């Protein structure tokens, strides 16, 4: 266990990284699922099936990354899991109800009598909206240190809106990739309309984070860190410009480069996420509990890590297989 030095140091670090990776994968993958759900009311009646078909084979597995992320928090940092989730009791409840509604109406809308379909379409949207808003709210509260004061809640309400619009953006660029024809043109329009949420969301959190804590401020704005970190905002800015230029000209002939906005959006989410991870490390509960203080016993973590080393590559392997099988433009969802 001590090949990399003290296991009480490297094991929590490894688990924090795994958990961080799971959250990032979840935010991107279920982000586009939720985003597609958010775009439902904007789509014409005959386009709604196309929207759902684009995420049909994937949403279930995408959601599993949330279970893994929360599971890793639960198993690797039990005290932090308790502190964070009891502080976020209400938004967690709203998110869970949203996820339940979203997942169930996904199945129901295709199987219930045709007359009920609008109801389940509405539930699909409402569920996606509740989940997105509450996740954005929790993000804001987390950045503010999980204390319920009026300004903090106000900030969290703002991030709730930004993340929701941000999700609708990544949903729209997913649709640009996975659909064609009129729907694709609409998706380009929706993506242009949703970009501001992404920019304001990343911008507001980037600005707010350093001012909540002097520790984070010093981590960013001292020399030479500021030089090492400068690629983060610069690259983000370039990606935003790229997306803006690209979306104004899309769609291209023969569907050329239709995957690029999604790739750029994913890169943007990743950069923003890395910035946050850098800010908060080594804390898992901001300014209160570090990953080292709240980690489970090294023996237990080691047992999990051992399994992870074998299982995670397999998970990634068959996830890639699934995306490969359902590559190309989304087709109608059929069981036969």
């Amino acid at each position, binding site marked *: 266990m001590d090949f990399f030095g003290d296991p009480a140091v490297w094991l929590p670090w490894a688990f924090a990284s795994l958990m961080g990776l799971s959250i990032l994968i979840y935010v991107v993958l279920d982000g586009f699922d939720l985003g597609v759900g958010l775009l439902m009311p904007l789509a014409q009646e005959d386009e709604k099936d196309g929207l759902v078909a684009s995420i049909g084979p994937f949403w279930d597995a995408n959601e599993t990354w949330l279970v893994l992320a929360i599971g890793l928090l639960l198993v690797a940092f039990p005290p932090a899991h308790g502190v964070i989730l009891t502080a976020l*009791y209400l938004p967690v409840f709203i998110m869970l109800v949203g996820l339940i509604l979203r997942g169930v109406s996904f199945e129901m809308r295709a199987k219930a009598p045709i007359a009920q379909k609008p109801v389940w379409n509405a539930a699909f949207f409402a569920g996606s909206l509740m989940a997105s808003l509450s996740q954005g709210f929790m993000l804001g509260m987390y950045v503010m240190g999980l204390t319920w004061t009026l300004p903090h809640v106000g900030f969290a309400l703002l991030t709730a809106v930004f993340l929701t619009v941000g999700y609708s953006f990544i949903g729209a660029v997913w649709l640009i990739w996975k659909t064609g024809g009129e729907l694709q043109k609409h998706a380009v329009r929706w993506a242009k309309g949703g970009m501001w949420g992404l920019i304001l969301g990343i911008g507001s959190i980037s600005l707010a984070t350093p001012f909540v804590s002097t520790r984070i401020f010093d981590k960013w704005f001292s020399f030479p860190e500021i030089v090492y970190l400068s690629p983060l905002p610069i690259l983000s800015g370039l990606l935003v410009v790229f997306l803006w230029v690209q979306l104004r000209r899309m769609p291209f002939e023969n569907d050329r480069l239709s995957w690029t906005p999604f790739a750029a959006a994913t890169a943007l989410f990743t950069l923003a996420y890395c910035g946050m991870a850098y800010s908060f490390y080594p804390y898992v509960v901001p300014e209160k509990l570090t990953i080292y203080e709240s980690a489970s*016993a090294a023996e*237990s973590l080691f047992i*999990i890590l051992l399994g992870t080393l074998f299982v995670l590559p397999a998970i990634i392997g*068959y996830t890639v297989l*699934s995306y490969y099988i359902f590559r190309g433009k989304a087709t109608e969802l059929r069981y036969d």
Partner: protein
Amino acid sequence: MDTLLLSRIQFGANISFHILFPTITIALGWMLLFFKLRFSATGDRKWMDAYMFWVKVFALSFAMGVVSGITMSFQFGTNWPGFMETVGNVAGPLLAYEIMTAFFLEAVFLGIMLFGASKVKSWVHTLATFLVAFGTTMSTFWIIVLNSWMHTPQGYELIDGVVHATNWFKIIFNPSMPYRFVHMMLASGLTVAFLIAGISALRMLWGDKGEDVKSALRVGIIAAAGLIPLQILAGDMHGLNTLEYQPAKVAAMEGNWETRSNVPLILFAIPDQENRTNHYEISIPNGASYILKHKAEGVVPGLNDFVAEDGTILHPRVSAVFFSFRIMIGTGVAMLLLSWAGVVMLRKYGAGHMPKLPLIAFSAMSFSGWIATLAGWYTTEIGRQPWLVQGVLSTKDAVSDVPAGMVLSTLIGYLVIYAALIIAYMGVITYLARKATRGEPLTSRQYPRGNTTDVPVLQPGE
């Protein structure tokens, strides 16, 4: 009501809602694999029709199970932070292995199983079906391991009040795990057997004469009739295991107050915990002693042994355990009678000419597996109280300090949604059955046999 009781009700409501759907998907996954393999072997269209109908039920149940399962993973933190803080070193790895070896497997291959039939070769699709069924079973295994460990913990040591794992083999293969796992797998098998038999019977009552319905009815009845004696045997052995490790639970199940010999088997009574006696008792002399000790003079533990000197009650609430247990047994007996009568009818009339009465009885029992499963879980889980982890962590020490009002309001929210979703779920299954009865095609494609590799291209507008 206080936060503790409300949190218990909330967790009970969430996990009750959740278990309904895995109970269906665990065995239905294997049943779908059976249909698919029969089709590959015989090329008979009816097996594919049966597959196509039940895969819809599977997809719906799976989605319900996934979303309600996510709720569970958050509930540990929101309502029971003390659980992971005390036993996280054991529960954590078990939950992690469940997510990694089972959750992802089933979730990813579900996409291929449901929507990939026209995109991959037939054997890949069969393999995906197998992996989904295997994944749900693995998931059951890990969850049952953790749950059983909470009933019969071993392979750990306590350091400063926190559990540390010392022997993973002992943790995984703890004394009650094999019994509980077999009991749950059989429960799932019975639930699905009665669901398939019941819905098929309903379709026949509505006038469906399809070969797939007859075959499904036959498969359902035979599976039910074969599984129920196994379940009775497994349940009995599980009970003896409980007697050894959790005597207070067995005392509550039997409604036995004093430790003594010649204990009767109580068929009905109203236990009175205040006065520590039973009212309106109807019983079979020496019955409980025979079942638990296999002789009339067998000594059965009584509830009065589990009251501390100062009057603190260390056994579960008797009436809850007592009645849950009887509901489970009663449902099981009804299952035994109906399924065996069903086999006799099958031999006499054949699946195509079953009289109305047994068809009505089977339709009425479509969801009977749910009742037995829930009643069984209530017996074992309430029976563990006041412990959360037997002898290690009491339930009241694990609860969060969230205000009672917050727990109550979210509880009401959950209950409303769950009620609506169960109605919608049962409604959609009957709607699918009605639609299938009207003869609306389940598949318009010529399905390739298992050994052919060419996959027909979908026609536009199909």
